[in-house]
């Protein structure tokens, strides 16, 4: 029964990462890019919990996960701040505005 749970969590995690990356590829909206990345990040925290569950070090894994969540929030805040400043500059959230630097 338990092995069944682990496989399910692993598959759901991979699906979430694929969903996040698909969102990253298909969208042209800055906030949706950030949302896609955050979805993928959530899947990763699930992997850490799964790892702690499998090797019997659940308290250590929980400590890791709480730290990761804090880091994620800071990254999300910085990302949304950048998106907000880009919105003020261009008037929309289209990622195709970001074409000044190339070559």
């Amino acid at each position: 029964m338990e092995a069944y749970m682990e496989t399910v969590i692993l598959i759901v995690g991979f699906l979430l990462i694929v969903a996040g990356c698909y969102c990253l590829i298909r969208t042209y909206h800055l906030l949706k890019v950030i949302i896609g990345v955050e979805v993928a990040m959530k899947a990763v925290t699930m992997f850490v919990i799964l790892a702690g569950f499998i090797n019997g070090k659940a308290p250590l894994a929980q400590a890791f996960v709480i730290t990761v969540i804090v880091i994620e929030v800071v990254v999300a805040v910085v990302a949304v701040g950048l998106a907000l400043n880009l919105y003020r500059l261009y008037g929309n959230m289209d990622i195709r505005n970001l074409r000044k630097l190339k070559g």
Partner: protein
Amino acid sequence: MQVIEYTTLLVFAVPLVILLINILLPRQLAEKSSIGLAYLAPLVQIVATAAGLVQIAQLKQHEFAISWNLAGAVSVRFAVNVFSLVLLFCIGMVTLAAIMVANRTVPQKRAGFAGLLMMLIVGMNGMVLVTDLFSLYVFLEIVGISSFVLIAMFKSDTGLEGAFKYLVMSVLASIMILTGLAFVFMQTGSLQYDQVGAAGGALVGPGAPHLALMYTAMALMIAGFAIKTGAVPFHSWLPDAHQSANTAVSVLLSGIVIKIAGIYGFIVITNFFGRLPGIDLTLALIGTVSIVVGALFALRQSHFKRIVAYSSVSQMGYILLGLSTGSVLGLLGAVAHVFNHATFKSTLFTNAAAVHEQTGTYDINELGGLEKKMPVTSFSSLAAFMSTAGIPPFAGFWSKLLIIMALWNSGDWVFAAIALIASIFTAAYFLRLQRKVFFGKLLDKFAQLTEIGGSVKWAQIMLTVVTIAAGLLFPFALRYFGGIGIL
């Protein structure tokens, strides 16, 4: 308590105290004094690491572990070896140069700049000193977050664009590294370096299990750290971010951040898992492709900072080649090249700042003949270029020689040959840069041009002296490493 313990204490305490003072000072005063105060952190770091290196030479031992027993409950463990002391020295040197440049190129938000810089120093020092993979990841994120804000804080359109591209790539790198860490944790039950090392050691030798989990973890972590390094299949963010940032921030990013955030991760991975089949070949291939493609891209740019940024991609390839050998000689060559790259890449970005401050442009097609008007900038740029290209008396020659010798010793003569031949490309793109910017006839519009003064000039002089001295004194450095039992 030994000197070396004070070293690890100081490199954390001083930047944090300066950060606190920076926050507590009244705003007007902080704007005026923060850059001056910030000089203290790299100066203390340089002196402390130099003292640590001297003590290592006296004790003839090169590994130290230091525990901080905080309130008896939590024990934080840091370890220092001779290579991490060299990296700490590089951090101090590059941040000193960056602050000297920032004194001129950062007109406003000086308090914010200084505060973020202190965060960046704490993050990088932490990465080098910690002894478990999860703390390494936490400090990696501190470095990343400070870098995004430093690139974007002046709110130019290109700055925001470069920062956003860097952020998205960097979060992808974090996802890969953290998934890799989760898999390693699943296998070993701990992320402490010694236990991870033991688990890695159990995977080599006859009859060792081929664990798909560990190989997946290695693939993910190599990809993640390659994004952070800017190695070639993953390099797209690097020129954009380094070009668009304020030049003082470019000095930091190209001079030290990509090496601590990326290359140090590779040093840790190769330390534990370098003998797994396939890891060395992967690193060597990434390195070779980086060298060649980075140099070819650098040849067709016309933006001063963009050429230098692509040059960083190319030089990171040499460091990865050195690490791919898995031998002590290769590691020594890689760390020596980290040091040399830190000096000459900071010099070149400082030159870019000087040229932009005096002429108002970064476009090399609009420049010409600056040699007569800006002799210090011209000479330091030439010295940095010769060191990058590996011309004998300069420091870059020795580190490239060590890397190629290590490759030859481990039988990878194909990679050694490619590394040798690709030096010609390095010479090509920098000769193009030098010829267009500094040599030739002085354009009429630059008749009134003067040499840059103040701290930027002194940064150029300091870095050039370090480049030339490191080249001339390199045999003594090798004797030093031999004396403590590394070679």
